């Protein structure tokens, strides 16, 4: 007789109180009219284009019951081929940003912003346009296609100058150099996948340079052992090792600003002309330059990229021109550099034009998703100018606006965007608008020429249209401007403002995922910081986490210090993207805005340069602890991230003999994963996809300070290993993504008292949330430390709770959680296969991290099926298990990185 019957039989009078169940039953709202496409409970998928940055990757948005929950790359889109970077994954948080405008607002006489309704808003807008009589300025984000045509038509109708498309990374130097060498100021298309050897003089093409997902994908095709037997050779020449230089085969720490000498030297060697004067300034031995030039000549076609935003010094133009001439001399133009296929960024206004526009103080300024005052704090904006902002969230510039007519988020609106001619993409709304916002097209009242129906249909289905473009021969080469570099004054350091993959130009600062997922290189979360070499820090007497005041001729900024060997001793690196004062709950108070340090005016060559400033360092005596999520960078002899040693191939680490040879009775599947360390570039896209898919909680900086982030797959970074230590000239950096290893002999399972952790019949290490009482012994005993604990009850500020994935349980306070190999995706595919009576093919199931990894480093599959990719990779001689000698039999196989040549 079951216990409950026993209770029923002996229940005392207390049972009378069981009237209405005290838990309020939920409500079910049916549809008004049946809709054949909408199956409640099943997700729908809409194609769109990501507008998080000008790269314009294709999106497939998963919508659960009318609310988008996850975005993934569109496999058919030529730019990103199904992949997305960290920023792309956080675009869902842009839609559900808790700090979005709910309705139009206007500035009252007292200077306060107060809410108004749309008719009032439109009336004030019309009156402002009328009084402006043509002195109208449009400063908006880069737009192409319909909206671009509408804006230009509207401006010409009001006798106003054409719009200025403001992007802080506007590649002014690149366009000016192309105007000099090829006659047209364009941003070209780079084809990394055709290059046999690659040199970058500062372009961080794996992080923010033009189209980082496309380049990451192409870079992996030419550089990873998994995709090519003869990997290409990549040399990075920059004063600081960023995420891009971390994947380089060779790294020259050239003195900031002397890159142009190296480019000219390479050009001289390739075209055997005399070397330029002053080569000793760049502190790079000549034999290295000869060898690099020889390697460039042998492996054709090659590709040489110019300086990026981080080393956009006064000599950047000379360097870029030398790079263009080098590409010409090596015959790369037309092969890997396509100067006559302009990227959409060509339409962007240069920084100088924007600065000059703000000086003219137009009577009416229209801001469309642009935040120039954050990047140029010194710009004048005030009294005579009536500012109308179409931004969807408050930012530094909109804070000074007089009228705010909030635009839809790009996931709620129609539109189209073509990063380049042969890859236009169409945006379509994935939900009814969250708030009382209106698309800017409607506010302007323009009627653009519509797409034809079948174009629209094809575009909506595929999300992309393809059109062939002819390549044109280059114009006559021009002379390089003579420029010289002043020696660094004593006590001053070159400022290197480096952008990062998660914050871009500061646009994604109010995304909790972008802030919580640690910076790929420094592993610091939730804070802006400055970076100094250990010698410099010791010489100046600074300790890590001390707050240092950087004083430049134009302003000061106080930032906590992070000490790392990946920057030249005479430089100080500052992370850009943080330092917002009025941008939202997660973005504010993350350190000072470093753009105050930069030179607000353009230099003599008419271009605004980001890294044209040297700063003095002063200690402030204050201390601000940084949330460093990985303090230890040396893996010692722990055989974590291994490289193929050039000596004899080491035997694969096989588990030691064991008394307990208990063989799991796997019948149909044993899920496993293979992670190729040679492909992994450490961009953390997998972490963002995992946060989006599995409802992972965020608790902010104070929790990150004590290591309480909840990431299910952490990417660790190591410098070399016991065999070959990482030196400053050749930093051998290795990224190691660690999901749950789903071990067969899982140390976490036999210590759990309530069977919350146990082994499923399909090889997964199960974590049953409702059975867990929170002893946390499983996390202690896990040698990979992949198990995380819910310290508090997770909060999702309204409306972020609409982003929660209905297929995954939202965990409560006091419960352990860990990577589940996206078990909700596994069971859904298994169910569909079972109901349709068809076998499951390898690749049917893609975990969230595998799906978005730009370099295909992660492969998921069934280890029992010998034909599956993961089974083949598991048997690869490069394959090894993490801590395999501890007899945990992990289901994740890591593939060794190739030995570092250089």
């Amino acid at each position: 007789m079951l216990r409950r019957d026993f209770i029923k039989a002996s229940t005392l009078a207390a049972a009378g109180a069981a009237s209405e169940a005290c838990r309020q039953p939920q409500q079910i709202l049916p549809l008004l009219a049946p809709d054949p496409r909408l199956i409640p409970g099943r997700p729908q998928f809409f194609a769109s284009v990501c507008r998080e940055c000008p790269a314009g990757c294709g999106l497939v948005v998963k919508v659960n019951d009318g609310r988008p929950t996850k975005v993934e790359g569109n496999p058919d889109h030529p730019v990103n081929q199904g992949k997305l970077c960290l920023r792309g994954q956080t675009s869902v948080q842009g839609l559900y940003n808790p700090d979005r405008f709910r309705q139009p607002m206007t500035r009252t006489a007292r200077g306060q912003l107060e809410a108004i309704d749309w008719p009032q808003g439109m009336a004030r807008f019309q009156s402002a346009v009328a009084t402006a009589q043509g002195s109208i300025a449009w400063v908006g984000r880069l737009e192409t296609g319909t909206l671009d045509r509408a804006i230009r038509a509207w401006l010409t109708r009001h006798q106003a100058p054409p719009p200025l498309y403001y992007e802080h990374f506007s590649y002014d130097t690149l366009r000016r150099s192309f105007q000099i060498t090829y006659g047209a100021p364009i941003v070209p298309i780079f084809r990394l996948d055709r290059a046999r050897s690659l040199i970058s003089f500062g372009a961080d093409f794996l992080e923010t340079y033009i189209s980082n997902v496309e380049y990451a994908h192409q870079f992996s095709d030419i550089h990873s052992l998994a995709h090519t037997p003869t990997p290409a050779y990549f040399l990075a020449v920059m004063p600081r090792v960023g995420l891009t230089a971390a994947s380089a085969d060779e790294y020259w720490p050239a003195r900031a600003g002397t890159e142009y000498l190296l480019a000219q030297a390479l050009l001289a060697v390739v075209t055997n002309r005399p070397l330029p004067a002053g080569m000793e300034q760049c502190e790079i031995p000549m034999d290295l330059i000869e060898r690099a030039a020889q390697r460039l000549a042998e492996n054709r076609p090659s590709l040489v990229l110019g300086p990026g935003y981080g080393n956009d010094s006064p000599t950047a133009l000379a360097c870029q021109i030398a790079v263009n001439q080098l590409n010409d001399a090596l015959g790369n133009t037309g092969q890997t550099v396509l100067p006559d296929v302009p990227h959409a960024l060509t339409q962007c206004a240069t920084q100088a034009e924007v600065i000059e526009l703000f000086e003219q103080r137009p009577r009416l300024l229209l801001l469309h998703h642009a935040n120039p005052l954050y990047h140029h704090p010194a710009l004048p904006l005030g009294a005579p100018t009536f500012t109308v902002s179409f931004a969807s969230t408050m930012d530094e510039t909109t804070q000074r606006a007089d009228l705010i007519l909030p635009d839809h988020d790009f996931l709620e609106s129609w539109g189209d965007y073509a990063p380049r001619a042969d890859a236009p993409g169409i945006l379509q709304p994935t939900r009814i608008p969250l708030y009382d916002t209106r698309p800017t097209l409607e506010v302007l009242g323009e009627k653009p020429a519509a797409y034809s129906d079948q174009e629209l249909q094809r575009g909506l289905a595929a999300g992309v249209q393809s059109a062939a473009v002819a390549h044109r021969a280059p114009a006559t080469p021009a002379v390089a401007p003579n420029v010289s570099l002043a020696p660094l004054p004593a006590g001053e350091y070159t400022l290197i403002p480096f952008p990062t993959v998660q914050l871009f130009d500061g646009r994604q600062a109010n995304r909790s995922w972008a802030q919580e997922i640690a910076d790929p290189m420094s592993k610091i979360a939730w804070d802006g910081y400055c970076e100094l070499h250990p010698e410099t820090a010791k010489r100046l007497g600074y300790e890590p986490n001390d707050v240092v005041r950087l004083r430049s001729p134009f302003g000061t900024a106080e930032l906590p210090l992070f000490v790392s060997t990946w920057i030249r001793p005479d430089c100080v690196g500052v992370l850009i993207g943080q330092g917002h004062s009025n941008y939202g709950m997660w973005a504010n108070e993350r350190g000072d805005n470093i753009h105050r340090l930069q030179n607000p005016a353009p230099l003599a060559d008419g271009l605004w340069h980001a890294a044209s400033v040297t700063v003095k360092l002063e200690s402030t005596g204050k201390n601000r602890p940084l949330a460093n999520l990985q303090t230890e960078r040396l893996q010692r002899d722990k055989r974590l991230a291994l490289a193929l040693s050039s000596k004899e191939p080491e035997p694969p680490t096989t588990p030691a003999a064991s008394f307990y040879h208990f063989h799991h009775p796997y019948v149909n599947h044993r899920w496993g994963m293979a992670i190729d360390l040679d492909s992994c570039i450490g961009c953390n896209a997998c972490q963002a996809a995992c946060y989006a898919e599995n409802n992972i909680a965020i608790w902010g900086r104070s929790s990150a300070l004590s290591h309480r982030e909840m990431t299910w797959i952490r990417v660790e970074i190591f410098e070399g290993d016991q065999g070959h230590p990482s030196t400053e000239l050749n930093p051998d950096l290795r990224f190691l993504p660690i999901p749950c290893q789903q071990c067969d002999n899982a140390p976490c399972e036999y210590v759990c008292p309530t069977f919350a952790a146990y082994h499923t019949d399909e090889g997964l290490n199960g974590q049953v949330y409702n059975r867990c009482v929170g002893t946390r012994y499983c996390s202690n005993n896990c040698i990979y430390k992949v198990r995380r604990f819910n310290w508090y009850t997770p909060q999702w500020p309204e409306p972020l709770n609409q982003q929660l994935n209905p297929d995954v349980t939202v965990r409560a306070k006091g419960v352990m959680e860990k990577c589940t190999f996206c078990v909700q995706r596994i069971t859904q595919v298994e169910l569909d296969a079972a109901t349709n009576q068809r076998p499951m093919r390898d690749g049917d199931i893609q975990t969230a991290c595998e799906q978005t990894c730009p370099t295909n480093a992660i492969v998921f599959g069934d280890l029992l099926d010998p034909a599956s990719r993961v089974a083949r990779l598991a048997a690869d001689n490069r394959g090894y298990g993490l801590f395999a000698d501890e007899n945990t039999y992990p289901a994740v196989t890591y593939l060794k990185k190739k030995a570092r040549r250089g």
Partner: protein
Amino acid sequence: MRPLALIVALLFGAFLWLYYLQDLPFRNAPQQAISFSHQIHYERGIQCAYCHMDAPRSTFAGMPSVLKCLGCHRIVIPQYPEIQKLHVYWNTQTPIPWKRVFWVPDYVRFNHQPHIAAGVQCQTCHGSIGSMDRVRQRVAFRMETCITCHRAMNARTDCFGACHH
């Protein structure tokens, strides 16, 4: 001895309420927006799948749209007061706020699709809805009910893979 027994009874009752009785929804048959009677419709030969048509293809069994009700009730007894309520909902284009009777906690991933595919009858879990005027939960949605059936039909009883993920 009198007060002692009372205290013991109270304590025992509190324990029962806290851990067992409070979520026994046996008696609850919430008053719905429209007092729809399953019995009348079932007797006229309307099968479950006619209104709840998403059961074989989704986690959620699906609710009939307002228009589907109107399909018949535009003609069948339109003047009946409950049907008048239906017309009011349709004219004001507001969905009918049905109160949920059968629910499982958030940590249980119940999916109708495999159950319908395995040929489980609706009455097995939802009780004889066909004979109910006001829907009332007869079978307790507790783990014991599910596990007994899963073991009998040797369906998948893997805690993490099947239900709790």
